[in-house]
Structures are given as C-alpha cells and as structure tokens.
C-alpha cells in the first residue's frame, strides 16, 4: 500500500521534481484566477447570474469575518476568502476522476498553515506596531509569555495536522474500501468526504480569523458593527 506520507512525482521541470499535488494546486489556482478575472472584467450594477453567485460568496465571507472578528472585513477579506475558497475547491477536487486533493498531502497543508502563521504576525504588527504585537504575548499576564509563544507554534501545527488528517483519512478510507469492494460501495463515503471537506475549509478559515482577531483585538476598541452595516 502506498504511504499517505509520501508524494508522487509526475514530471520534472528542469531539475525540480513536480509532484501530483503541486500540479493539481496549479490547476486549481489557474481555475480560480481565471474565473475571478473573467467575472471581475464585466461587473455591472445589475448582476448577471454568475456575478450574483460570486457576490454571494463574498458576502458570506464578509458576514463571517464580521461575526467572528468583530471588525470591518475589508482588510481581511482577500486573505480569509482566498483561504476558504482554495481549500474548499481543493477538498472537492476529488470529484474529478483521477485527481487526489492536494490538501491530502502534508506539504500543501504545511504551506497553508505557514501562511496563517505569517498572516497573524503581519496583521498583528499592522494593527499595533511591533511593540503592540509583542505586548499581546504578555496577555493576560506576563507569566503567560512562554506559554503564549509555545501556543502560537502548536496551534499552527495543529492547523496543519487537522486539515491533513481529515482530508488524507478520507482519501485513505476510500482507497481501502475500493480495494475491498468494487464499483458503487465507496459512494456514501465519498459523499461524507465532500461534507468533511466543506466543513474543514470553513473551520480552517474560521480558525485563521480567530487567530488574527486574537493578535489585533487587544489593540483596537471593538467598533459597533451593527450600526456601521450599510443597508442593502
């Protein structure tokens, strides 16, 4: 049985080996970027069906950021939204025959978790300066400084392991069931996999929001969001 911890090299780009998950990631990036550019090029005040669908996604992300972080969503929309949409599409890419979701590979998840780790530092420093960001480690109490440092590393690691474990175990179980029983038996498991994939994408985005909110919230007094919402 192929180990889920190794990755398959499909071709070489010069001296650099390109694994299957990297190729799928590039394909997903191309599809998302192409779709985004295509929609954004012909935006109109009276939206077409596809524009309405995209606006729905953006609105949902905005609402989640407002509810979870209690700040105006604009600075965080791009990062959180991209995380959610990418992981969602990556998890559901197993619907395409022959494609294994890139999030079932340790490297992709490590890259995503690293992005969140760096984004927390970036947004924290932007909100309160370097001193302000470092001061959040001394909250609620200077005794907590070593624990807070360790926590910022372990939560990144658990973010990585959570996504990897969930997606990979789904792929693995389907592989085992397929080797035991043929044609239609794995379909319920695949449906469960789609549900898990969607929930994991949501959870990854929400946890990224919670971590970023933890780095910025002590610096800013929380504005009253409900009064700022523009009526539609």
């Amino acid at each position, binding site marked *: 049985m192929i*180990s*889920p*911890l190794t990755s398959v090299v499909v071709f070489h780009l010069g001296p650099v080996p390109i694994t299957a998950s990297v190729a799928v990631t590039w394909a997903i990036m191309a599809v998302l970027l192409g779709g985004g550019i295509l929609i954004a090029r012909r935006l109109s005040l009276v939206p077409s069906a596809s524009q309405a669908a995209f606006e729905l996604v953006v609105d949902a992300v905005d609402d*989640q950021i407002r*509810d979870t972080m209690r700040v105006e969503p604009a600075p965080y929309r791009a990062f959180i939204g991209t995380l959610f949409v990418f992981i969602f599409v990556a998890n559901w890419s197993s619907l395409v025959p022959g494609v294994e979701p890139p999030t079932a590979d340790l490297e992709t998840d490590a890259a995503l978790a690293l992005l969140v780790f760096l984004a927390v530092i970036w947004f924290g420093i932007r909100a309160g300066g370097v001193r302000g960001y470092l001061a959040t480690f001394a909250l609620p109490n200077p005794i907590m400084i070593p624990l807070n440092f360790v926590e910022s590393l372990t939560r990144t690691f*658990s973010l990585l392991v*959570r996504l990897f*474990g969930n997606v990979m*175990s789904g792929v693995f179980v389907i592989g085992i069931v397929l080797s035991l029983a043929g044609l239609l038996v794995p379909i319920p498991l695949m449906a469960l996999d789609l549900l898990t994939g969607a929930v994991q994408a949501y*959870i990854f985005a929400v946890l990224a929001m919670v971590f970023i909110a933890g780095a910025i919230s002590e610096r800013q007094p929380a504005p009253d969001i409900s009064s700022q919402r523009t009526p539609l």
Partner: protein
Amino acid sequence: MNWLALVSIISAAVAVSFGAIGPALAEGRAVAAAMDAIARQPEAANTISRTLFVGLAMIETMAIYCLVIALLLLFANPLLK
C-alpha cells in the same frame, strides 16, 4: 516478521482505538449541549452552530493526532529502517 513490526502494528491499532474514545465522548457532550441550547434559544442558532463547529474541530484534533501517530508507526517508523 520481526517483533518490532508486530509491536508497531498493534500500537497503531491501540493508538487509534483508545485515542478515539475521549474525543467521541467529548463531541457527544458538545453536540448535546448545543442541541439543548438551540432548543431553548432558536434565535441564537447561528452563533451556537458556528462556535460548535470550531469547538468540534478542536476536539477532533485529538483524534487526528492519534491517527497521525498510527500512520507514523505504520509508514514512517524510524525503528524499522
């Protein structure tokens, strides 16, 4: 098959089976509490289910750790090299 491989396989099974008990009980309690809360206060269902999902993910991580340990034992065991 040498005894190290045998012990690794058995420990992997033990890690997953016993590691799943705690998170299963915890998730059951969390969902039951959330159901209770939603039944009492249906208008807060959105907030409750969002918090529930994040909490479940946190709890589930414990089981996933055990799974990763089991996979390390089976596929990347440093003692079996």
